[in-house]
């Protein structure tokens, strides 16, 4: 017990205490420094202030916690006084100073080391009571108005300082949050890989919120569940865990799309069994949304039973959630773009076609393995060099550069010869296209397809074909010469033996003659057909009088027609006039049709009709109709094919090469026309040739 000092010296003590307090507070950097400066400054046994305590109200519980004390070295650390308990509860509740002259007479007094009097002064910041300064004396009724005044002044000073420090801390926290966001965004651009970004987000959230751990999950639209992609200090690695809708805290917010605080997780109905093996005390979770679309969920946990989540934490989490959502969305878009890029990249890399991309200066920007293989340059050797320096030769240089220039403007396509690194030449099909992105010309892309083998094969094929045509031409000439002798001498012999009166030999000589003629016709048809197939058959177009040609054909066919006792009716008016076409071929076709008609008709009638198509282009129509054996639909279907007389036996019965109609069909097509057949077995056949009156095929140079 310390006797009270004199009034004057007491005043001096009070002034000294206030000065100490002010000095201490000025140098304080945070709230605790201020509390300490306040209690230490006021601690003066001479004034009877034997114990001083700063009890600060905990916002979420309302409990008062001892943050600084003086005069009682053994005071329990973080001594907690529950809301409404203790003498200082009155000051905490009504915000005014309360004086208790004899603490022992108060029921609510919580025994401490003193048994005297106590003053409770509220600490008020911005109109709100944040705590109570408790000053105790060992003596009863040790305080007077002077004390109340100095203690109130001290409390006010401390309050002002606290307000200042809180303001600075808030500022700093906001700055930290801002920096955290910037860091998150920086992560987005530097490490755009989903799980990495999410790990960065949860790491930052855990640090920022001062929680023990947390998790981020993304929403799997396809499977309609959440997948945890990043976790930190939740007691186990939960990465990869899937949570259904309504399962656990994140499943709950994924359903409600609202944030959620769960004070005691293990008593919560919605808890997930997946967390039964770890210590989770309280949980705060929020959905990650883009607009109203769910992209994931974030959760933070306290494993310390003393810690609970408060509104302030939710505010912080709500600041993080949209950023995490954007991070997920961006990463998803990026991953998608990356996948697409890789997809196209692999197309280019695996393409058998050489692909090279050029900048605006024609310099090589990139090339694919097929390009490396085709031209023998590695990517390292090629990049940066002008393409045409690399693969064009002196005589293809200007052509190559023209392609490159043109391809900057529009797609070009061609065939050219380029040079490999080893000097060898390659024949290539070239495709050049401009590369334009968002309307901006970036360069061009060149595609080279190696056609060396193709061209070689074509040259060989052409040479072989030419050799074949030459062979056929030679062959037919060589065959025809002895045939001419056979045909000519047999015919001559017939005349001679008749003159000599040896008529019995005539039929045999006639057979030799007929067989020779047939063989010759075969050779000629085969030659025609092979010329057509080889594209060597040429058209000789001329203007000619159709009626004159018809008379000539009818006269030529007369012996054939008479042979089977048939009757030929020709209808060709003078009005048909002239036509332009290949006279020899038209005649050959008509003779072939008349010859066929005569062969397959006996004692019947054959019509040869010519007319101009009255409607349309005035095409010439030639029609040969007979009353012969006709054809079944199956026979009709094959009649224009080479070597396809209706039946194999037909050729033996009726003669002919079986090539005439195949040749006629191709002749008609060459002249821009066609040939058609109508027939009925046992009734007869009608062949109709339709030719443009003015064939438009260019006359070949002679």
């Amino acid at each position, binding site marked *: 017990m310390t006797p009270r000092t004199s009034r004057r010296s007491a005043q001096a003590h009070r002034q000294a205490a206030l000065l100490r307090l002010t000095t201490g507070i000025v140098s304080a950097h945070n709230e605790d420094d201020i509390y300490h400066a306040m209690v230490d400054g006021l601690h003066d046994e001479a004034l009877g202030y034997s114990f001083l305590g700063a009890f600060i109200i905990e916002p979420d519980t309302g409990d008062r916690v001892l943050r600084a004390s003086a005069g009682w070295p053994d005071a329990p650390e973080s001594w907690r006084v529950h809301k409404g308990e203790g003498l200082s509860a009155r000051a905490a509740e009504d915000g005014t100073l309360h004086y208790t002259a004899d603490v022992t007479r108060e029921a609510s007094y919580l025994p401490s080391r003193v048994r005297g009097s106590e003053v409770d002064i509220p600490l008020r910041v911005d109109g709100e009571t944040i705590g109570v300064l408790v000053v105790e004396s060992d003596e009863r009724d040790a305080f007077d108005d002077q004390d109340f005044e100095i203690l109130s002044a001290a409390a006010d000073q401390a309050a002002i300082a606290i307000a200042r420090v809180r303001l600075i801390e808030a500022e700093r926290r906001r700055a930290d949050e801002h920096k955290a966001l910037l860091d998150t965004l920086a992560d987005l651009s530097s490490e755009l890989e989903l799980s990495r970004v999410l790990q960065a987000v949860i790491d930052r959230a855990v640090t920022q919120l001062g929680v023990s751990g947390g998790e981020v999950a993304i929403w799997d639209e396809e499977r309609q569940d959440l997948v945890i992609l990043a976790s930190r200090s939740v007691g186990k690695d939960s990465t990869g865990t899937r949570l259904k809708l309504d399962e656990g805290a994140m499943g709950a917010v994924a359903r409600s799309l609202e944030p959620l605080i769960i004070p005691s997780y293990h008593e919560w109905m919605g808890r997930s069994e997946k967390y039964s093996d770890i210590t989770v005390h309280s949980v705060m979770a929020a959905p990650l949304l883009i607009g109203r679309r769910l992209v994931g969920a974030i959760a933070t946990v306290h494993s310390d039973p003393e810690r609970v989540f408060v509104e302030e934490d939710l505010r912080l989490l709500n600041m993080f959630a949209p950023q995490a959502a954007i991070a997920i969305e961006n990463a998803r878009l990026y991953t998608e773009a990356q996948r697409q890029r890789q997809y196209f990249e692999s197309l280019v890399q695996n393409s058998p076609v050489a692909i090279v991309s050029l900048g605006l200066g024609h310099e090589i920007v990139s090339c694919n393995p097929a390009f490396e293989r085709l031209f023998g340059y590695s990517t390292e050797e090629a990049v940066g060099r002008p393409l045409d320096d690399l693969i064009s030769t002196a005589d293809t240089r200007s052509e190559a550069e023209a392609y490159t220039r043109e391809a900057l403007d529009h797609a070009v396509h061609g065939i050219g010869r380029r040079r490999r690194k080893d000097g060898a030449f390659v024949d290539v099909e070239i495709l050049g296209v401009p590369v334009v992105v968002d309307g901006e010309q970036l360069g061009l892309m060149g595609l080279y397809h190696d056609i060396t083998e193709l061209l070689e094969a074509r040259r060989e094929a052409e040479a072989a074909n030419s050799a074949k045509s030459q062979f056929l031409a030679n062959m037919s000439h060589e065959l025809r010469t002895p045939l*001419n002798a056979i045909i000519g001498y047999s015919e001559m012999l017939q*005349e001679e033996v008749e003159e000599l009166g040896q008529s019995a030999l005539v039929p045999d000589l006639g057979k030799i003659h007929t067989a020779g003629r047939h063989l010759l016709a075969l050779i000629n048809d085969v030659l025609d057909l092979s010329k057509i197939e080889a594209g060597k058959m040429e*058209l000789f177009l*001329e203007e000619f009088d159709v009626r004159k040609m018809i008379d000539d054909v009818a006269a030529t066919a007369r012996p054939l027609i008479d042979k089977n006792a048939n009757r030929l009716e020709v209808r060709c008016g003078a009005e048909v006039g002239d036509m332009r076409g290949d006279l020899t071929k038209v005649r050959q076709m008509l003779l072939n049709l008349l010859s066929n008609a005569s062969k397959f008709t006996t004692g019947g009638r054959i019509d040869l009709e010519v007319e101009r198509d009255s409607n349309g282009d005035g095409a010439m129509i030639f029609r040969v109709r007979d009353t012969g054996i006709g054809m079944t639909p199956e026979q009709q279907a094959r009649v224009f094919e080479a070597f396809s007389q209706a039946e194999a036996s037909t050729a033996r019965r009726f003669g002919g090469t079986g090539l005439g109609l195949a040749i006629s069909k191709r002749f008609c097509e060459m002249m821009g026309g066609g040939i058609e057949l109508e027939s009925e077995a046992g009734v007869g056949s009608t062949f109709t040739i339709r030719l443009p009156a003015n064939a438009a095929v260019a006359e070949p140079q002679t």
Partner: protein
Amino acid sequence: MAKILLVEDNEMNRDMLSRRLERKGYQVEMAVDGRQGVDKAKTMAYDLVLMDMSLPEIDGWEATRELRADPATKDLPIIALTAHAMSGDREKALEAGCNDYDTKPIELSRLLGKMEALLGGAAPAAEPGGA
């Protein structure tokens, strides 16, 4: 009696056609290539030339052009003989200056018709007997 020049490199064709024409009453002389054909046609007087088109030395078309270029033979009737009735052969022969055209193997009656049309009165009046 009409005097015919047969320009033909193939011996059998020459033999066959000359004998058949002679049996029909024509006087036939022969040349074995284009050059000889042109020389004979220019130095002797013929009523008609039967000209094969594929000939050694100079071909039938060239020989015809040469004869047409010479005032002495520019009106001499020439019938082209080709191996096959191919488009182009006929046109080429007529372009070169041939009066007519026939294809081998020769169908005698058809050829005689064409010859008579060109010879007019100079055709043989009667057939001599035998070869």
